[in-house]
Every structure is written in C-alpha cells, then in structure tokens.
C-alpha cells in the first residue's frame, strides 16, 4: 500500500486519504471582472502535467486536514508533502528518480 506523509500525523496508509485536485489555484477575488474564458480557466482547466504535480490531499480518516503534496504523475511517487498555506517547495530536482 502507498504510504503518504501527512504533515500533521506522519506516515500513513493511502486508504486514509482523499485526493483534492490541483493545488495553489486561488479563487479570483473579483469573479465578475473576469471574461468567460478566464472564469472557465479557473473552474476547469488544469495543468495536467506528466511528471511533478502539486496537488491537494485530505487526511480524511485521520486528522481531517487538507495539505499539499508534490507527486510524480508517472511513477505515483510522493516527492514531498507540506501544510496548506505554505509555498510549493522547489521539488524539481529532489527525489524524482527514487
């Protein structure tokens, strides 16, 4: 079973977690000022990279908290996890081949 490091609880089994989509997408502060295309980009369009991806996870059956993770979408390897509100760590070089 895949082990995910909750920033609060430590290493825990994957079944306790729920995926929450791409991270670091801020809701526009003034939605009515956006064009339809810009609003659609916010709602629907994601980077969908092949490789490192910053994404939200929730430790649903644990502390219940949302946090962020950088995961390799090719290997499913979790490079790093960090608390919500913290900036994305520079994960471009770290751990990608482990």
């Amino acid at each position, binding site marked *: 079973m895949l082990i995910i490091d909750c920033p609060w609880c430590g290493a825990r*089994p994957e079944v306790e977690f729920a995926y929450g989509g791409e991270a670091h997408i801020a809701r526009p502060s003034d939605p009515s000022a956006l064009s339809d295309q810009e609003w659609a980009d916010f709602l629907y369009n994601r980077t969908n990279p092949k490789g490192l991806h910053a994404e939200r996870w929730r430790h649903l059956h644990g502390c219940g908290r949302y946090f962020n993770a950088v995961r390799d979408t090719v290997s499913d390897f979790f490079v790093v996890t960090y608390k919500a509100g913290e900036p994305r760590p520079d994960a471009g070089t770290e751990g990608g081949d482990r």
Partner: protein
Amino acid sequence: MAELMPSLPLDTLAAAPRDVAVARLVALGPAARLVFRGREAAIGPAGEAFGVPLPREACRVNAADGRYALWLGPDEWMLLALDTDPAPIFAAIEAATAGLPHALTDVSARSTGIEIAGPQAAFVLGQGCPLDLSPEAFPVGMCTRTLFHKAEIVLVRTAPDIFHIDVWRSFAPYVWELLEEGRREFA
C-alpha cells in the same frame, strides 16, 4: 404504557461475545463525548475546565481520573469520560472559554465504545486496520482516527494490550462482527 428505555447499538450483539481470552471484547456503556475545536487562546482554559490538558502533540492522549483528551487534529480534540453525564462538563468548558473563539459540540450519542484487550488484541485489529499497531509505531497513549475495514473509528491504545475503539453507532454492529470474525481463530 411501557416506559421506553434508551438502548445502545450493541446491546443485543454484545450480550454473548465469544469467550476468547487472548482478545476479549467488551461493549462499553454510555459516555460523555465532547468535540472541542478552538484557536490558541481557548485551548488552555478548555483543558483546565475539563481537568485534563489538551495534548498539543499529534495523535496523543492525555488522561487523568477517567477523563481522556484525544488529539484528533491540530485544532480538534475529543474529550471522553466513560459513564459520565456530559452536561456539567459542557457547561464548565463553555464558562471557561466564554468570549474565546471555539466550538464545543456534545456528540455523546453519536458513537459507542468498544474495548478489545489481550495479547492478540493488536493482531485482531490488524485484520481490518491498515496502521502498524506494533508498540513502537503505536505506543500506549497514542490515538487517531483511522479505518477498521470500511468503517471510520477512533482508536486509542490505553495499555500495552488494551485498545479503545470509538465508532459511530450505526457502524458499531459492522465493526463488532468483524472483530468477532477476527477472533474466531482463537476460539
């Protein structure tokens, strides 16, 4: 007219548990269960009013005089007292935290308690719980929400061979019967 008596979800199932000494199963009676969520300023006073300081370390329990304060999240605790009326505890904490940002909720009737005890208790739990329950990884005084098969539980190790399980009442028969299933090989 007959008086209506409140019943616990395991009254019938737990009336005749298998006699398995290496993993004894007990359905616990009513308890006071309060969920406290709060910001920094309210955490200290809430613990003082409860009589047990709220643990600040993740997944830890503080206990005193039959009262348990369980860390469930960085701003969330369950306050548990077996066989206790929740109302006076609730009132005391509300009085101590008046004006401080917090939420206190009485969830006493939401869940029910099960105790599993004996040298094979961790083994039986391990059949449905994905955590490492060895004493090094899950020592006495540790608690967490987790899963038992497909039901969410709160699991506490109160002694090397004793675990307390808190489970939502509608899931309790499911958890109980799967624990019984896990004990069959020792019967």
